[in-house]
Structures are given as C-alpha cells and as structure tokens.
C-alpha cells in the first residue's frame, strides 16, 4: 500500500517537464495565496480578474513580434501588466466614473484587442487556449528562474511592508493621519498583482487567475481569525492545491490549470460547510442548539 502511494507520487517526477511544472505551480500557488489575502481583504477580486485579462494584448504583441517564440513573452506581459495596473490605479483614485464600470470597460476592450491580435495567426485556437488557461508542462528552465525570482520579490515586498499594507487595508483614515503614503502602497500592491499574474500565466492562464488569488485566501478566512494565520493557512492551501492539482491533471489527464483550480474550489467548499465557527454546518447547528435551549 505504502509502496503504491510512493510509486504514484514519484511516477510523474521521472519527467523533467513535470518536475519543472510542479515547482512552477508550487511557487505560483504560494505567491498568489499570500498576495491573495490582501486581494480578498481589500475587495480587489474583480480588479485582479480584470488585470489578468488586460495583459492579453501585450502577450499577443510579443507573440506576433517574436514569431511564436515564448521567451520574450514574459517581458511583454510584465510591461503590459505594470502599465495597465498603474492605469487602473489612476482610474480607481479618480472617481469620475464608478470604479468597477471603468475597469469593466478597459478590461473587455483590452481583452478583445488581445483576441483580435492572436486571431491573425493560423494556430489561433491552440495558442489562445494556452494564454487563457495556461500550459504548465511547457515551463522552460529559464521560465522557472524568472518565476522564482519575481515570485520571491513579491513575497519579500509583502514581508517588508506588511504593517503598512495592513493599516491601509483596515483603516485608510488612520493611514492618512499616520502620514503613510497610501497612494504609493496602493500602486505598489497593483504592480505586485500584475507581476504575480504574469508569473502565473503559464500555470493557470488569464482565465483562471482570479481563482488562485481569491480562493485559497477566502478558504483561509473561514478557518482563521488573525492575518498572519490567514496568510499561513492560505499559503498551505495554495501550495497544496498547486501540487495536488498537477498530480490530478497527470493521472486523470485533464488540463492542469483547471485541475489546480478545482482542488482549490473543493477545499473552499469543504471549509464553507465544515469550518468550525464560521462554517455553514456549525452555524446551523448552533442556531438549532439555541432554539432548543
């Protein structure tokens, strides 16, 4: 029995592309889960989803210019992501049009532009699918290095400015009276979000990105009561989902990004129903207990 499990776990590791895929997924799962706690607490889920989609035209241009080579795509995506995150940040601080409306307009427009650009290539549908839903098994060693470097940078920034991010998220007026440069940190968070989205492109792609950001953190919020604990549990869920999802994808022969997200979602449903105190079952039982008491 034990031997079989070990065999099942080690089997995929015989392929170098699987090892790289696992490492890339693990990094992405962890970085998304940590940054995701702020995305959830600040109500930036829609913003994250939109930002992921607006990267598509940048990726498409890079793709067309490089004639199909994947190497330069990372930098094109990064440049587009940083630019649009700053643009979206400016709109959200502007207040002329409602923020979610403005984001919706830009997001759909940019996404359409990306699709239009990619559709000029003959292998349109396959390429588009890779950008939309990821292709983790095609992670090259150089991709892995970039993923680790930029993922590490995001984690380092969160650690360095933890208390500032906490204050601007919990109480903007306190942040202002303490003379914390809230705008700077708002933009920094958006740029970090863009970087995280770019390193996640190959793992889960544009379309499923938001799940990696939101689902582990949301699950964790049902199980914890303090931010450090929420981050730790979210990290564990994100990391586990990434690895478990990839195994699932290997053995069940399903798309890797989708498999990872499905594991995340499954964990969320479990927590939503069974979590102590905050779970649906617990609350229903307590209500019943009160009714009988």
């Amino acid at each position, binding site marked *: 029995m034990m031997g079989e499990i070990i065999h099942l776990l080690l089997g995929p590791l015989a392929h170098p592309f699987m090892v790289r895929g696992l490492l890339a997924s693990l990094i992405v799962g962890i970085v998304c889960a940590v940054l995701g706690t702020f995305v959830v*607490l600040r109500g930036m889920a829609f913003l994250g989803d939109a930002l992921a989609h607006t990267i598509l035209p940048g990726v498409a241009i890079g793709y067309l210019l490089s004639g199909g080579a994947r190497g330069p795509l990372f930098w094109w995506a990064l440049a587009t992501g940083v630019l649009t995150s700053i643009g979206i940040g400016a709109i959200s601080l502007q207040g002329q049009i409602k923020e979610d409306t403005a984001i919706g307009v830009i997001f759909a427009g940019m996404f359409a532009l990306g699709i239009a650009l990619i559709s000029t290539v003959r292998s349109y549908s396959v390429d588009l699918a890779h950008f939309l839903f990821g292709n983790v098994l095609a992670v090259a060693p150089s991709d892995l290095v970039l993923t680790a470097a930029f993922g590490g940078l995001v984690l380092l920034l969160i650690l*360095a400015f933890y208390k*500032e991010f*906490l204050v601007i998220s*919990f109480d903007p*007026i*306190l942040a202002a*009276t*303490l003379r914390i440069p809230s705008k700077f940190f708002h933009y920094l968070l958006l740029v970090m979000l863009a970087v995280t989205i770019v390193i996640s492109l190959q793992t889960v792609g544009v379309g499923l990105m938001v799940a990696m950001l939101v689902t582990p953190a949301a699950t964790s919020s049902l199980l914890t009561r303090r*931010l450090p604990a929420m981050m730790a549990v979210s990290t564990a869920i994100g990391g586990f989902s990434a690895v478990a999802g990839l195994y699932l994808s290997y053995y069940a022969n399903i798309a890797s990004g989708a498999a990872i997200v499905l594991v995340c979602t499954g964990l969320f449903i479990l927590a939503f129903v069974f979590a102590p105190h905050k779970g649906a079952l617990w609350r229903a039982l307590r209500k019943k207990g009160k009714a009988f008491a």
Partner: protein
Amino acid sequence: MAAILSKRYVHDAQAPSVSVKGVTVQYDGTRALDDVSFELVRGERVAVVGPNGAGKSTLFKVIAGVLQPTHGQVTLFGTEPQRHICVGYVPQRSQVDMSFPVNVRDVVMMGRTGRLGLLRWPTRRDRQLVQESLELVAMADLASRQIGELSGGQQQRVFIARALAQGAEIMLMDEPLTGLDVNSQEDILHILNELHRRGVTVLVATHDLNQAARCFDRVMLLNRRLIGLDYPDKILNATLLWQAYGEQLRLVETKDGAMVFSDTACSGDHLESE
C-alpha cells in the same frame, strides 16, 4: 535622529493645540464648511454638536490633515497638520470592517506604525506601550479577542487605546457615544476625563446635547458655519440652538424651565448592550 524627529513633530508650546482660521470646504458646489474659525487650548474637552450633515466629520478630517480645505488654514501646535502624527482619529464604528482578521492587540499596535517608520518591526517598547494603552481603557483582559467579537462600547475603547498608543495629543472622536448603552457611555466619558488629565485635546462629535453640557469644557455648535463655541451654560440657549438646528429642534416650555428636544437621529447604529 533628533533632526528627523524635530522636522516632523515641532510643537510650539505657546501655540494653541488646534487653530482653525477661515476654513471653507466645498464639495462639488455644496459647502460642507463655511468660514469656520476657532482656537482650542491644550487638554480641552470640546463637544461638537450639530444636525446631521452639519460638517462635523468634514471638520475632523480637515483638522486631521486628511482633507485639504478649499480656503483657510489649520495649524496644530503652530504648524500645518500634515507635519504631525499626533492626531488620533477614532472612527464611527459603522465605518470600520469589524470582520477584518485582527485582534484587539493588533488594532492598537497599528497606532505605532507611524512612529515605527518603514521597514521596522515593533520592539518591546512598542508592545509595552500597547499594553499600557489597553490597561488605560480597561481592555487588557480582552487583548486576544477578534474585534468583531466585542460589544460596541468595547470596540470604541479599543480605538481610543489605538490613538493613545499612537501618542495622540489631539483626539478626534466621531460619535463615540452613539448607539451605546448608558454604562458603556459612562466608561467612555471616564476615559475622556483621564485624557483631559494627560493634556490631550479632545473633540467629540455627539448628538446628545445634555451630555455635551454635562461632560465637556466647551461646546461647539456647528451647522456648516460655526454658530458658537463657549461654555455649556452660555452656548445652550434658545437663540443659538435654533440657529444650529432650525426645524429639527423642539423647544418645550415646562414649569421647571425650557426643555430642548434635539435631533437624535443616528447613522444606522442600534442600541446595544455590553
């Protein structure tokens, strides 16, 4: 180090703790504040009274240096608010996300963020200050509770402790008594006395005229314009109250004297018990 500190926290001991000169705030054509001027001395307790929409929150934001007035000038201890981190803002409870994953101690520690500066973690001294602040508001026993699990009065005390940990010398409280039961209100008024003793200038927005008259050194009547700022017995007269509240006020003559019924509308809060 001393140079950096003095650049930021210059306090002129002779200057008024709060000085507001000709402050007007305009939001898209409507005036939230109209040519407001006054001065407060160190350690004063002032109740700010006026109907809903009188500009109380706007005034607080201008004093805190969070909002730039359209005209006029604010100085704290002689210099503009943006150079101070000694202003504690105690928000209305309805404006805070009480489900946020922080406990009482975490919230109070946030007050230390400004003094700590970037890339510094709290030291033992910070933790000690947080503990002392919690003891002062009698919340040390509940330091590990998540803030959503507290009663309204307890939450209010936590935010006062946070301002104390911040080292606030001017405290702005936006309706801290609204929606609290009598005992919780008394607890907070008790803390206000302690703040007064420590020389903290306190401005409290309130709907309760009786409390304003009973528990504060001076009362400010505000309705976009400054109607008056004086000792309670001078300010609570029919002419001034009528100017502040107009139609929202009822005066009833009884054989024991005039009774005033004020606008007690609360912003979505409900009475709750400890």
